[in-house]
């Protein structure tokens, strides 16, 4: 029973787009010491930037990623940051952070020749894996009641609504163009 259909036919002559024409910056954890970031700046945003800035400002600016380390165990509270200059054609970068068990996020933008960093995109936050036995030795023990654990499912019940049960989820967020443009009007730091 061979199905008379070719790979080409199934792919309908399609190929993967090199770009999606969107502004996006994503951060992924690789190991306790390295993160990976990838990004895309849409041509519309680039066009807008070129128009907004003076030609010589644009020509002399450098693409840069700013890596923020949060205070230990305190997601959202920035402790320190460092910058990585990027070649103009790069679409992703491996970032050596060297610190296991810390929260990080990154911003992508341009450094103008006045030395200031203009941030365009902000990433999600990730936490680096640990690389050693924890020094925290607080012990908290529990006796889970497995027998009465419930099975929760959303399946097929997607229309039911109960606001008190709805949870907030930290989402991969992509700022809308307008937010980006507002943000671009001033330096991040």
């Amino acid at each position: 029973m061979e199905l008379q259909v070719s790979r080409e036919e199934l792919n309908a002559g399609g190929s993967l787009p090199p770009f999606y024409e969107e502004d996006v910056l994503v951060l992924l954890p690789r190991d306790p010491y390295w993160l990976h970031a990838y990004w895309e700046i849409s041509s519309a945003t680039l066009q807008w930037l070129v128009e907004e800035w003076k030609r010589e400002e644009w020509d002399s600016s450098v693409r840069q990623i700013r890596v923020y380390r949060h205070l230990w165990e305190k997601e959202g509270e920035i402790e320190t940051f460092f910058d990585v200059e990027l070649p103009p054609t790069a679409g992703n970068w491996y970032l050596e952070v060297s610190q296991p068990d810390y929260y990080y996020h990154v911003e992508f933008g341009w450094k103008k020749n006045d030395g200031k960093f203009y941030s365009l995109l902000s990433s999600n936050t990730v936490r680096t894996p640990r690389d050693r036995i924890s020094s925290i030795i607080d012990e908290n023990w529990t006796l889970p009641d497995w027998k009465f654990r419930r099975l929760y499912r959303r399946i097929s019940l997607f229309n039911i609504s109960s606001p008190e049960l709805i949870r907030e989820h930290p989402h991969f967020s992509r700022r809308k163009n307008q937010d980006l443009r507002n943000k671009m009007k001033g330096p991040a730091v």
Partner: protein
Amino acid sequence: MPQGFLSIVLHAHLPYVRHPEHEYSLEEKWYYEAMLECYLPLLRRMENMKNEGINFRLTFSISPTLLAMMEDNLLRDRFKRYMQNLQNLAHREEERTAGDATFAPLARLYREHFDQIAEYYHQRCGERPSRILKELQNDGFVEVITTAATHGYLPLLDIQKESAYAQVAASIEYYTDIMGEPPRGIWLPECAYNYGLEEVLEELGLQYFLTDTHGLLYAAPRPKYGVFSPIVTNNGVAVFARDAETSKQVWSAKEGYPGDFYYREFYRDIGHDLSYDYIKDYLHPPGLRSDTGIKYYRISGAEAPLDHKQPYIPEIAREKAAEHAGNFMFNREKQVEYLSEVMGRPPIIIAPYDTELFGHWWFEGPLWLDYLCRKIDKDQENIKLVTPGDYLDMGYPLQVSTPSSSSWGDKGYHEVWLNGKNDWLYPHLHRGARDMIHLATEHSDTEGVMERALTQAARELLLAQSSDWPFIMTVGTMDEYAENRAHDHLVRFRRLVEQISSGNIDVQWLEKLENVDNLYPHLDFRLFQKQETTVPVEVATIEK
């Protein structure tokens, strides 16, 4: 009362490698080989032990993609063809070697083995091995757990929680369809955990998952009992971890049992050894030099070149398997003796293995496991075989702690699945998930052709998310195949997204996709819905 517990966890997974568009494919052969050499012999041995009254308990993790291939009509037909062809070859080999004191008994061994497995598959399994698994589970010999739907690498997908959710939920759905009840535990694909995944697991009613040694050892706060007791996450999901020492004895190619010089040599196969004219019709695909599964030589020596291997002697290999089973048991007894004294309560040793090691790479593996179960039942009282679920039922208080992000891949974290060879994949996977979440949310009450298109889009995205593709790209074997698979599913997905968005579905083309990428017939694309728009709803209680 045993001093400690041993949990042997066999993880069976193959990516969905069904290729109706080709008469023969090397990738489908992975599946046939694993069926014939690993899954069926293991099931048969477990059933025999059950029938002989041996008291054993094993944990079997089976991936939904593998289950779906076992259930698929086309692959069932093709597997029968594959098996018949090998039986024919084995019969011919028996004739060819007749009178040869060394090789005739070996040819007979293979012929008998293939005939027995074929009969088992047809008569006992009724071509559906999942039925046997279900029986073994119901009779209390096996606990069957699941993994993510297409073995997606969750730490690199959970940037959208919906992706991790859909991977796990689709898997539980399919498992429940086949096994009749939801699983208690999950084998995280590649043992890969990232902070927060337990939210999804808890929400879907899973009670435990497994990590590699350091995933638990580096948990915070520090786990008092190391890997010899599970911990429990803040939201109440238990975490078990592999014991490195136990693994090494079986895994390690050099120090482990499978490297014994009397065990069968994997790389010396008659598919390469015998004359082309004789063997060509039995190859897969016909005419292409490849392994047949019939191998007459033993490992012979640490550095023995392939052309200096000695003939296999089954009697000695059997003795070795028994000896190794005894050695493994003895070491576990000593281990629990020591640990129980230090811990003041019975330890649990988790020994997880890839099922494909047993029978395929390590020919004597199923026999070793058989001996081990029998010996543990009859020859000692210090250790008891349990499943992770059994251990939880014993009601020991568990320490609350959060495991470290980790995997069981090279270097222990996520680099195997995220490096210069495969990082091109993630922008497409994440963008795909964003589109799928959007469409699933917008079109939640759709039906007819549109619903079919959305369901197929969910299938294509799930298939693109398999951890196997980036893994193969990294290790560099069949990397073109892996790149094509990831690429093709993403391309098909994107075309579906375009058609769904424009409301203009090419039904003929959709039908073709449904016939080729056909897994999970009851898949609900709404699993990808944006999470804020849905609520968890209680639908069942686990009575265990």
